[in-house]
């Protein structure tokens, strides 16, 4: 009967109930959309990071990343064919990107500069990775003797697309190898150090210079980042001499720290929103409760305890919070999938080169959290509003206007 009365009380003053419901709905809607955009920002940022350089993760021989070797190629992966065969059997694996690093001397005319290069499967990588902005020329794809240069390196060498240059590298047996490449394109990441040293050539060309069939690392593209843990566990049990590392660890300086920093910011903003919602609801519920002092006095006069009255009032608050929350979430969701469906253009995130659209992304846990918070806020607001009236001397409450 108390529950029924609490529910019926929602209809006693339609305008007031509507005002409270709108307050709750607005607050919940803001929280819900904010959570949706946070989710969108983080997901877009994550996707951009994955497609910038590392993929979803990378395979190396065990402890390779932690150690510095005088002859690192001795610790490279020597059974790529076997691993490649295994990886192609895994349903979650979409792309396999074998890589070698290629420290080399680049020579153009009389200028020679050392660079930190990479041999990659450029055709496959060009479909998956889009972290490099091509300042001039074209990306490295299937050009057999093509080379992609960082903008600083190209400037220092004085080369432009379609110019040729010579690469001198020390092979794994200690001999000097040499090959000529044509500049396919010049890239820019925004990182001066990287742009001054980076170059990329085809994997086979790099392996030929290094005189090895081994690969240093294998970057992977999965169907979803959620599948990484499951994949990594199965892979490492199958290849115990190898280890897997997710992109979040590989790019810890930029990605993980940025995510942690964004999370901390979002929490503060969320707290501010929640405080505003709480105050709004408290204000509306207080007005509603204070108007009913006589009625509450009557309940107390008829033997209802402070606890009973508080239960009645907080039930009302919970109903209002829950109902307002559902209205707010529903309306916000409709607005998000109609008017804001294309997302909002954001500038490039830390460590990224491309601007990206953040769009509202729905997840059920956002509904539970927003609804839970709005209901909790209404409960807390009605609790404190009710406490004052329920503890009022009965005769005074009855005398109230």
């Amino acid at each position, binding site marked *: *009967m*108390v529950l029924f*009365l609490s529910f*019926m*009380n929602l*209809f*006693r003053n339609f305008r007031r109930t509507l005002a409270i419901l709108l307050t709750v709905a607005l607050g919940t809607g803001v929280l819900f959309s904010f959570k949706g955009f946070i989710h969108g920002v983080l997901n877009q940022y994550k996707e951009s990071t994955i497609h910038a350089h590392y993929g979803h993760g990378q395979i190396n021989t065990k402890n390779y990343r932690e150690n510095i070797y005088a002859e690192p190629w001795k610790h490279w992966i020597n059974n790529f064919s076997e691993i490649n065969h295994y990886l192609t059997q895994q349903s979650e694996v979409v792309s396999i990107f074998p890589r070698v690093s290629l420290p080399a001397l680049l020579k153009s005319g009389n200028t020679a500069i050392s660079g930190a290069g990479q041999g990659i499967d450029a055709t496959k990588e060009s479909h998956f990775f889009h972290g490099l902005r091509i300042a001039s020329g074209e990306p490295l794809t299937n050009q057999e003797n093509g080379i992609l240069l960082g903008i600083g390196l190209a400037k220092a060498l004085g080369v432009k697309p379609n110019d040729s240059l010579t690469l001198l590298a020390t092979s794994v047996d200690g001999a000097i190898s040499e090959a000529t490449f044509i500049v396919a394109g010049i890239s820019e990441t925004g990182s001066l150090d990287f742009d001054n040293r980076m170059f990329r050539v085809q994997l086979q060309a790099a392996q030929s210079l290094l005189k090895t069939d081994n690969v240093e690392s294998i970057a992977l593209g999965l169907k979803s980042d959620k599948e990484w843990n499951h994949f990594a566990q199965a892979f490492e049990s199958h290849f115990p001499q190898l280890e897997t590392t997710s992109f979040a660890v590989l790019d810890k300086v930029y990605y993980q720290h940025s995510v942690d920093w964004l999370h901390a910011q979002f929490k503060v903003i969320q707290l501010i929103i929640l405080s505003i919602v709480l105050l709004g609801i408290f204000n509306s519920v207080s007005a509603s409760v204070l108007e009913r002092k*006589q*009625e509450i*006095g*009557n309940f*107390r*006069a*008829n*033997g*209802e*305890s402070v606890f*009973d009255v508080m239960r009645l009032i907080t039930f009302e608050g919970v109903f209002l919070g829950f109902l307002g929350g559902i209205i707010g979430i529903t309306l916000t969701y409709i607005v998000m999938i109609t008017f804001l469906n294309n997302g909002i253009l954001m500038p490039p995130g830390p460590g990224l080169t491309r601007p990206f659209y953040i769009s509202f992304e729905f997840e059920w846990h956002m509904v539970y959290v927003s609804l839970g918070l709005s209901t909790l806020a209404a409960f807390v607001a009605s609790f404190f509003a009710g406490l004052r009236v329920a503890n009022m*001397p*009965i*005769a005074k409450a*009855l005398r109230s206007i």
Partner: protein
Amino acid sequence: MKKNYLYQLKDVSFNYQLGSHQIEAIKNVSMDIPLQKLITLTGPSGSGKSSLLNLLGLIEPIQQGSIFFQGEELSLMSQSQQNLIRKFQIGFIFQQFHLIPVFTVEENVAFFLARQGLANAEIKKRTKESLEAVKLWEHRQKKPNELSGGQRQRVAIARALAKKPNVIIGDEPTASLDQKTGREIMDIFKHLASEHSVSIILTTHDPMVQSYAEKSFHLVDGILKN
């Protein structure tokens, strides 16, 4: 203290604060209120009759003196014991009715019965009996705002009666009603006191109401006058 009295008051005083002033509403009142009678507390406005009624109804704290309810001293009781007395043994009727606007007449009467923890069948039985007693059974589906002032007061009486209390306390229950309706209400009270063995204590300064009283106490400036 004797249990054959409904209330016994010994040197009861009561003050309340009005701004910076302390008002002595009741001054050393001692009285015995008998069982199962229609009793009125009379006196001019500000004489302390409402304050005294509130003390009898346990809705004002006892500040000074002793009040015994059926032999038990109220000031020695805990809040929860006092809640139980108000829930089961005292019925209230207010000048402003204090009906629950979102409930129908029937639900208004049934609500406090449900809060007493009675079974559904018993709630229905008592609701019907009490609404029939005040001749409002046919209006049971109406909301309070669809009733006249007299009908609302009769709902309040039915609500108090349905609890089957030992005493019904009414603070000027006919003050907002016309004489004819007021007389109808008083007839109901008289019937309740004689047929249902309920004690009725009413405050009033209406001679019509006083004419129904089996015993009357008169207060002037917080002092009991015989």
